């Protein structure tokens, strides 16, 4: 999943990004509200983590502007302002969840995962397609009960395609969702990842991760 963290505290911003990357997400960061809003408008994110008290533009204004611009990415408000009024105000402005500082990192990661799932209409942490299972909590995949040994990138690609089966995603779209702003992108990295993922899925890998020539890749549910 591709996430955006908008947080003015350098330590918090960097540590949350590290934790999310360790959890298999792709993370972009912004250090003030204006930059955060610009990034949210420029690229689709599966979840936006937004601080409220920030320089240049506060988080609630960023949230309002995002919703006004039609950006429907789930938003987790992360703030030291933790009164009921603040929470109600944040949720009414269009936030999907609210977490007061200080917080437990595990809870933060669980909430981000839940928001990402809900953003794709998936309520269970386990995504099942035929005999293929993806556990978004443990970041593990299995086929017919046998675990698949996937790299973080392969897991990310599989989860991206599984969340929207049948929908063709171009290489550009896949790149945007799998790489953060600072990541280096090689021209054939997507094709290479798809190749390795197909092999790990089994002999029918190319029937699960299908190619539509000139358009991109899509996921097809494997037969049981």
């Amino acid at each position: 999943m591709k996430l955006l963290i908008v947080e003015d505290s350098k330590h918090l911003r960097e540590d949350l990004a590290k934790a999310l990357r360790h959890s298999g997400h792709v993370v972009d960061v912004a250090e003030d509200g204006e930059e955060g809003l610009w990034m949210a408008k420029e690229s689709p994110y599966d979840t936006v983590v937004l601080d409220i008290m920030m320089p240049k533009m506060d988080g609630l204004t960023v949230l309002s502007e995002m919703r006004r611009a039609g950006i429907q990415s789930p938003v987790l408000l992360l703030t030291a302002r933790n009164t009921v009024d603040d929470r109600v105000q944040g949720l009414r402005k269009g936030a999907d969840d609210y977490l007061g500082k200080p917080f437990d990192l595990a809870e933060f990661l669980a909430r981000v995962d839940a928001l990402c799932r809900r953003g794709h209409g998936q309520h269970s942490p386990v995504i099942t397609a035929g005999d293929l299972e993806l556990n978004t909590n443990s970041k593990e995949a299995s086929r017919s009960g046998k675990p698949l040994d996937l790299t973080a990138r392969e897991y990310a690609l599989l989860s991206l395609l599984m969340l929207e089966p049948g929908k063709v995603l171009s290489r550009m779209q896949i790149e945007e969702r799998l790489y953060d702003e600072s990541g280096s992108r090689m021209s054939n990295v997507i094709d290479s990842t798809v190749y390795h993922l197909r092999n790990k899925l089994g002999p029918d890998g190319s029937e699960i991760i299908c190619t539509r020539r000139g358009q991109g890749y899509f996921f097809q549910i494997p037969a049981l």
Partner: protein
Amino acid sequence: MISIRRRISAWMLPGLAAVWLVGGVVVYRTHRSATFAAIDSENMVFIRMIRMNQRSQSRGPGPGRGRGNRERAPASLLSEEGVFYQVWDLDGKLLAKSKHLAEFDLPLPEAKGEAIDRQTLVLPSQLRLRTVGMTFGAGHFNDADPESGRPAHAGGSGGGPMAVIIVVARDLSDADARLKTTLFGITGTGLVIIAGMAFLLRMALRNSLRPLDDLAAAVSNVDPSSLDARFSTGKEPLELTPVVFHLDSLMERVEKGFLRERRFGADLAHELRTPIAEMRTKLDLAAKWPEERNEEFFIATREINMRMHRVVDTMLELAHLENSDGSSPVESVLLAPLVAETWALLRERAEARQLKTEIHCPDDATVRGKFELWKHILANLFSNAVDYTSVGGSIHFDLCEDGIALCNTVDGLSTGDVGQMFERFWRADGSRSDSNHSGLGLSLVQACAHDMGFHATASLKKHEDGEQFVICVRRKTGK
């Protein structure tokens, strides 16, 4: 509880009743006097008729008596019902009397001589009578003036009517009935008018005081979420205008105070919770992913800890200064070495930001106060100046009357910002994420200054290099 409605009603209605009562009494008495005057007048006419009868009887009929015949009163008049008379000679001998009086005698006039006597009396049968009595001298007739009541003088040539005392009485039943009707009329009209006035007063008060009720309702609807409410509508009555004006002013102050408190709460939460969150996240991260336990982790953790330490120390210092009564001894503090020492710690940072610095502090310059507090003041002011002066800008330190002044060029600071600078945890928007400052520096400067009898002020002024921020710490006037 005092009610304006009740107070006005309590004054108006009894007042109106009193006025009506006095008016009614005057009207009644006037009417009564007029009625009695009319009765007296009729009685005088009757007395004249009796006197005419007496004269004609004394002359007897004959030629040349036409005038007497013409002036003789008809007998029917003398026997008119409800009218009584009695005639005496001057010796008190009864000469004539109404049959209706039967055995009752009218009283002889109390007034002596020729004066007209008027009385009201009650017969044993409870009949109320109005009497007029008059004494006539012998030989005169026409000189008795019924209007003025002056009788004719006795004496004169013989052959005239004899001297008599005539008393005429008239039944007052009709007059009393008319007066009673008048009294009832006055009373009834008064009651109706008072009742009407009470109703009108109630309506008028209700309508007139409605804006007050509306204002009370508007005030009672104010809660912490509607502190932007104002009560002036431009249509309120003149009497309420000052009240509404002062209420609006009060609301403005309350709103500002509330916003300040809310901002303070939010800033406090941010300043205290953010480093705790940073520390906790860092520890959770290191615990879950051991590869994060590197040198950078320890350096960052120590930095966060130091920042929290600074905030706590400053808050404790502020609390200490707030509780101080300022009575600890002051001394003469030599400024030059203190300024030099403070600036030496910041020179490198200032040079890195290419700041131009001018420090004018004579070697022998002193200031009254406490060494440690002046150290705090200078350290905070210089530190702020170095960090918030625009890159390549200038810092100017000088002595001023009864204190010190520090000026530095700034960008993006507004007059509104300057007004809030001494609030705790206040920071200009752009510096919110700055971990070197917590927004307590200027609060501490103000507290230190107050403790020594000084006062810190901040202002913005135009400068050739742009906007210049000026902060002065001066001795309080009169201390």
